[in-house]
């Protein structure tokens, strides 16, 4: 069964539940705001899952959070509590956890390498919120690498889905 994953949006959310970066890949631009809502509402389910798992912490992949209208939302929490939310287009096919986990790990790595940029620290305000500073600025327009990598991942996911369908 081919994975017919169409990635509609990716959201990175800080440990303080503030949005870091929300990228939408769907064609209709006016629906971009919708994915902000999706990312925001998914925090509810993420919190529930994280609290429920409680003791067995360290599990990053949270699985399907919910599906609403034409969107399926998957969640992931990095060990440093950055949340990654994926929104796929709803399709009547099995979504394999192993594939979603792979996308999440790629995105996590993208974020991780982007935040390793030492110049982010320079850019960030060294005010009171110094500790959490590298998170928001990573997605600022000034630093394109992160954005590009996320786009690249989305492209790979899309092409993989297509190639798999063409094979079958």
């Amino acid at each position, binding site marked *: 069964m081919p994975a017919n994953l169409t990635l509609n949006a990716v959201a990175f959310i800080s440990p303080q539940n503030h949005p870091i970066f*929300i990228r939408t890949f769907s064609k209709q631009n006016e629906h971009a705001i919708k994915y902000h809502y999706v990312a925001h509402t998914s925090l509810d389910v993420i919190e529930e899952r994280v609290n429920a798992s409680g003791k067995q912490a360290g599990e990053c992949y949270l699985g399907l*959070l919910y599906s609403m209208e034409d969107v399926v939302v998957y969640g992931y929490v990095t060990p440093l509590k950055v949340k990654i939310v994926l929104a796929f287009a709803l399709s009547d096919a099995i979504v394999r956890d*192993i594939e979603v986990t792979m996308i999440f790990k790629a995105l996590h790595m993208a974020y991780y390498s982007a935040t390793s940029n030492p110049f982010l620290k320079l850019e960030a305000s060294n005010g009171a*919120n110094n500790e959490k500073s590298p998170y*928001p600025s990573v997605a600022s327009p000034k630093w394109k690498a992160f954005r590009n990598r996320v786009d690249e991942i989305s492209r790979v996911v899309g092409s993989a889905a297509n190639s798999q369908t063409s094979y079958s």
Partner: protein
Amino acid sequence: MNSYPPELLAQLAPIMFVAGLDSPATKSQDAFQVLTLRLRDALLAQRKVAIWQPEKTKSFQVVLVDRDVRFPPRKLLPLDDPQYAAAHSPLSPLTPSSPLHPDGLIAPIWIRKHTTLLPSVFVLFLRIFEFPPQASKTLPDLPDVDRDREREQEERKRDTELSAEVALRKKSMSERGIKLTVVLMASRRMLDDPTLDARLTFIRRQSGLDSRAALFVLSPVSAAELNDFVRSLQQALYESAVEYYTAHSKRVRRKRNRHSQAHSSYPGPAAVSGLNIPRPLRPEGWTVRYEYKMACFAEFRSEDEVALKHYQDAYDMLIIMFGSTAILPPRTKRWAEAKVLADCINIKIVKLYLYNNEHALALSHHNTHIRQFGDFSRGWGIGEETFEFWSWVARQHRILAELLDQGVRSALILPVHKPALTSQNLHALNQSTRIPGELDFARSAGINPSHALQHPGFYYYMAARCTEMRRERFQAAIEAELSSQPGNLSPGFANEKKVEHLAIILELYTKAYELFKKYTPASSQTQAQGRLTLWIAYRIAQTYHQSGKFDMAVRFFERIARTYRREKWYSMLPPLLSTWYTCAQQLGDVELSICLLIEMLGHDSVESEDPGSLEEDLLAVLKSAVPATPEDTLVVDLSEAQPIFNSSVILWTPDINVGESSAFQISLTAPTCRSIKSIPFSSLAVYVKDRVSPLIIRHSPSDTDPPLLGVVNLGHITPSNDDDLGGSRTADLRWHPGSTIVFRGTMSSDVPSVLKVTKLALTIEVNTWKVEIPLPPCSSRVQAGHAPRWLSSLDPPKFIPIERENYDFTAITHVPHQLDVSLVHHAPAFLDESYPIVVQVTNTDSRTFDIVVDILLQPTEIDDAVNYIVVDDQQSSGLIKGIQFGVLGPGASGKKTIHLFNSGAGGERMIDVSIQSRPNDSEDETNEDDDNENDLLSDDKTETLRTLVIPTVNPFKVTSDVSYRHKQEPWPGLANLQTFDAKFWDDRRGGEAIASMKFECTGPWNLLLDSVTLEREDNIQAKIIECSTDQDDADMFPAEYLPGDEFRAIYRISLATDEEISEDLILGPGRFVVKWRRNGQDAELDDRLCTTFISLPSLRHPSDGLVALLNVPPVATLHDPITLSLIIRNYHPSRSANIAVQLEPDTLDGFIVAGLRSGHIPVLLPGAEEKLLWRLIPVECGHVRIPRLKIFNKRAAIVAAQGSDQSGSNADIPSGEVVRVVNVGHDRGCSVDVGPAGGEDHTILVLP
């Protein structure tokens, strides 16, 4: 659910008719009436008609009927009609009068027939006749036999009547295969009647009732027992009910099979399609009909799997029928009925799946249903562009939501879609790649999200969304109608006009909201509303807005915006704010409009096509309306929202001294995408900490356009002084998009505090409006925040990034006092000396200070160390506070000497010195009333801390040396009365000790020894006999001792013992007192003598057993006889000694010896001595060895020999223990084992 016939949805259960329980007309306390009422309640409570009822408790749906209820006829014709066999049921499509004639599938009325008109079991409640018991009292004279006979006859008569009635009923039931059960109600007395069994058998036989579960007897019992009865009644009858429905199923199956075989005999559709006459039901339709019936009968029997199978078959066949417009022409009555039937079957299938917890299958079926009929709808012309379609989809979602809601309330458990694979077991699987099956599982693990069942709120939400779509389509249709294109108006359009879409949407959203709220995890429920609920709330608010209920919408918006602002999801705010703003406009709430417009100005990141629209709106609002209370300022608090300006306040230096000033810059950057140029800001207020009134910068319009980077000089600001410049500070408070104004100046303070800008506030003044917008001093719209930058040059603009943290404040402190502190002392210190430490404080400042010093002697961990310090007349072993140095003018210095006394052992001593200086305010005596000033000045205190580590050493190194000597004088006899005197100094055993003590000056300083004396402290065991220091030697002291010099004192101590020789040490009977002082030129040194006490070392008892003391003169003359005496002493406290003395003959070369050569001496009692004498005549000159004496204590040997006598051993008597011979001339031995046993090493110098 209300949109579908309830018969088609309800869960079916076996039907039980209950007759004979007519509710009594009047309420009475008759036991049977009560029983009747209770029975009615208990029976009716067994089951409620509901859609979701998965329980399999073998309960019946009870219908209370009249006793002579009639069942509907099976066929329209009477039974005796010849056509009867060919006739059909009144509901069959083949019966012309049926509502289904000629091509209906199945009608709700058919279900109703089976749920209300036809039972599977019939329970008849009857009273059994009871002969009145009172009869015996009224007719006492009648003999018993007569009365019994009369009673028997009466009973038999009544029972026969009853049996006849039952038999009649039984006959009509048997025709239909319905089980008849009779419950006879009898009094409790009757139950005990021995004739009852016979009567019951009679009744059963007469009425032809079944032998099993057909006749019950019930007496009035309690409600609980009644429930038991009802339960057992149902248990007993359930099987009959199942049989009944099975029979129906069989009949239907037979018919279906007949049909499918006779399929070809029906006229084909082509034959009749051209005519407009009703066509008979097609074979597909018959299949649907029969499958549906079988499904229903299976459902009656609670055989869920069978029912599911038949429902699916019916559904599949229906789909085939819908697939062809020839079979089911769209938009006909039959088509609509079939559609309803399909929807209802779908729900039944979903429900049956859910009963079995097959969530994915249930949801999958539901989705397929929607998709399938969505596809059909397109073909029918009611596709996605029509409101009909969306209305239908909404209904499907809604009914699923309702079903789930009901299910969750009873037993349905919603699945949690957690990933089945955790990273751990994934890892484990990767390890065990050799097992292909498991890896496949790992690869394929996952769920189909569209089959993931969620809580019903989601489906209500979907229904609401679909209803929104429906409304959209409907409004499009209305527009089309208005534009006079009524061509494609659907038939339902007129009906649709009556529908209040918004009300439905609201209802659905509200239900979704409640469910989302219910399913919000408990933890987040406490802290905040769930975000999903907020999202629904947002939709509700939008709906309120659309339906014109602006006040409701505003209330929702307010609540939602609060969370969005707090969580900083600003991207979601602009659409919310703009809708909110339109609501506020509609409500005419000017102040709210202003607040919202100003908040919207802050949302810069959104690209808007008209950047100036908001500012125009704001100006328009301000100009058009008049404030309700013109004197009040409208404060727009945007503390949680995005600020309009990126603001930053930077103070250049982190800390300054009082009186110095720090440069600051306040920069305000306007949004880049929103124009705020024309907003008339009238003033900017800068609130500085500790400053009473804010610094106001007024707007002064200038003709030139505001630059992209403007600079306003504010001059110098002091927080305490408010009188400066006042309103004279002006600036052009207009901003281009993206432009920045930097306000710069300097700040200072006269008192120590913190310089900080606490708040900025912009004020807009238009048309009696006064709107104040507080701004946080440091904030930015973008989350990343701006690095603080300091404008270093205006042309070209250059900025320096500010690296330090807390760049927004400057700490102000007093100028530190310049003091020079010196601590003079000469380490190391000696123990027991008064060690001077000179503290000198010199004021090197230009001010006059009052100096106070605290000194703390740190406690040491050295054993027995008792230390203290003395300053002036204060003495302490810890802290001395408040040593006044007085007022020191510039250049002056003060001096104090601390004396440190150390005792115990050497080591390090630590002293902390704290010098506190305060400016001397004695000059300010003139303005003493200015308390505030004084208080502030008194805060100006500088503390200088010094820590001193002083090594301490002992002035002398003392070594002592002790040797013991036996007493040579003869012991007093054992019976000497003198020895019993209390004052008798019994030194028999102790002997005496000769000790010397050496004092060595260890330095490094020279000492002046003033005196060394021995202080006697004789005790009962030791007394000092003499000491070398007792001799008064005038030249000896005082004398200067350099490091390394030594002084030695020798003393003798007599030791006395009690009877018991204890092992304890004897305390030294005195101590040496050394008076000395440090010999130096230092003026600070104390002239007083220091005294060091040195205790004498402890002494030990000599512990000898037997000792032979050999006394021989050291010098002899040739041929001149000398006396050699040997004293053998028994020191042992209890043992007597048996001494043998032997003179070694081989050592007698140098002397001629007269005396005992070998022999025993009398037994020596404890504490006794024996003296032996020899005369020696030396015959050689030089150092001649004295004859060796061997002395044995044979006591132990004798004891041993006696013990071994019995064994007959004639071995030589062992020689026994050797007794030590001590030459008293060399008696220095302090221990027992010194020297060999004999005196062979001792020699006598024999002179010629």
